[in-house]
């Protein structure tokens, strides 16, 4: 996982409450190897006029320069629905490093953290106001500072705390490999497991 300490970027607002992971990456693309790069599938159908047609210039990510942004502003319950980690691969491979939104789907949120994509929760009123601001000042920049646990918004929106659980934060800051870290507790796992299987022998069959 690529480490994340601090990111400053323009912001693209993706419209729609309950933007589910089928919108982020349609199911038919989930067969691809990761080596092919998932960025090409990001918002595949909703950024087009029809599923396989040309790009819709009205979709925010299709506007000139929008591809440069590494931070997206999203609406309530972003990433709900299917557990497909391909949704996070598509965002990460496209170059997205952080998301700002009122709430995220629980499985999507965890998947994001495992891939160094930082989901920042801010109150819905603040998100709405930021969206308005971005329509007037599309060049406005935001800084997500994971080290200092804060987000710096443009205009007079000020600085706000970034609340990511300290365990995940530590992992992302240092780009840690979680499996390797967990394997350092091998003995505790082994001891627990032996007792568990002894009391639930059907688990070991």
């Amino acid at each position, binding site marked *: 996982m690529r480490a994340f300490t601090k990111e400053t970027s323009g912001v693209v607002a993706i419209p729609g409450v309950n933007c589910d992971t089928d919108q982020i990456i349609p199911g*038919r693309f989930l067969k691809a190897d990761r080596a092919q790069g998932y960025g090409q599938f990001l918002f595949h159908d909703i950024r087009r006029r029809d599923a396989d047609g040309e790009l819709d210039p009205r979709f925010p990510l299709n506007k000139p320069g929008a591809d440069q942004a590494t931070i997206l502003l999203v609406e309530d319950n972003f990433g709900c629905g299917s*557990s497909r980690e391909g949704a996070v691969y598509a965002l990460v491979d496209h170059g997205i490093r952080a998301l700002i939104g009122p709430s995220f789907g629980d499985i999507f949120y965890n998947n994001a953290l495992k891939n160094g994509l930082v989901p920042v929760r801010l109150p819905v009123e603040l998100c709405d106001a930021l969206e308005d601001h971005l329509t007037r000042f599309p060049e406005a920049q935001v800084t997500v500072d994971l080290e200092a646990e804060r987000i710096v918004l443009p205009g007079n929106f000020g600085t706000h705390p970034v609340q990511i659980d300290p365990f995940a934060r530590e992992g992302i800051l240092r780009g840690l490999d979680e499996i390797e870290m967990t394997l350092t507790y091998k003995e505790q796992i082994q001891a*627990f*497991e032996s007792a568990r299987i002894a009391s639930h022998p*059907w688990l070991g069959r």
Partner: protein
Amino acid sequence: MAPAAAPRTMLGKIWDEHEIMRHPAGPSLLYIDRDMIHEGSFHAFADLKRRGLKPRRPKQIFGVADHYVPTLGRSARDAASPAIAKMIDTFDENMEWGGVRHFGLTSREQGIVHVVAPEQGITLPGLTIVCSDSHTSTQGALGAIAFGIGQSENAHVLATQTLWQTRPKTMRVTVDGALGQGVTAKDVMLALIAKIGAAGAGGYAIEFAGPVVRNFSIEARLTLCNMSIEAAARFGMVAPDEITFDYVRGRHFAPSEQEWDGAVAHWRELVSDEGAVFDREVVLDGAAIAPMVTWGTSPEDAVAINGHVPDPSAFDSADKRKSAAKSLDYMELTPGTALDGLKLDKVFIGSCTNSRIEDLRAAASILKGRKVVIPAIVVPGSTQVKEQAEREGLAATFKEAGFEWRESGCSMCAAMNGDVVGPGERCASTSNRNFVGRQGPGARTHLVSPAMAAAAAISGCLTDVRRL
């Protein structure tokens, strides 16, 4: 004298029993009893191979081919495309490589993972169960902690048989009273999601309670827990009781007869204590719930079948007004349209929500002596459900009515195997998601119960099943 221990919830008890340690930074290292694997797990296997690791506890991993399997035949050659066939082959190869027991395309135990796991006794009360599928919440119906994970977490489980997890908040959903005629677990869930919203239970584990839930069969409880995730809850649970024990007893991977009494004694202790405090309580009046149908592109867009397409301007939040207008545009619906009578192009009965034997019985009971007027398919949840339905004569009823009788798999719910609803087509579906493009690019989905789907197939439009 030591003070009495505070009353605990079922979630708390099962969680504590699986906590190996707690990290100073917060999360618990949970022991995972069983991990279910499907074709999408190729990313996790690639990760293991890159690390030079193998599955740590292959006997606690179970593979089932479901997302990509063809429903018109039982060979990878029947797959809709070479790329889809490759997914099925890669799955078999990975299962062989990892030494993981698996129910492939030709296995009599094959089916949709969340139908197969309870059926085989893999799902048991008191276990922690994961699967890289959001509908793993289904399996909590037997009194387990069961939740969906991504492929990074799946690789972590395969390598360590554990996961770092933060304990969710708890929500108790009590369904009081009794359900009216023609009202099912599916309708209860659509009513709940309409009430609390598709984000309503984010961060919570739901425990379903109350007389309606206690009287539900395991099949109905599975439907209930299945759609918890559509309310954003990663976990849905029902306390185990005699109905649960009767269901589990004798199943292949369940405790043996010698172990049975001990296992049940332990399971009885898992239920939430009297006086246990939930972070949130929601109460539904069962008698007030009607057969439900969705009109939009989120499961929260649900109303009673005798209701109408709402006017987007009637919603409180600006965001919802915008998204409802967009949904209606996609669904090609105008505000005020009666849902009862809305013309359809297709009907799909299947998915981990509604493809178990009781679902098929409910649909078949409506179809007896009637004919469908639009294309309709039924995809049993598992090969065993299919065989049982054939023995009971349900398959004959479906076929005589003009339904296509398919092999089991996720089929037109996930639309990954080539079974799709065409662009612009309107489908009444017993699945769980009416998202934009979910059943195929441009497809329009109306979520309903199996009996409502059957009623829709014979009348060619959304129909209040209570009239039939």
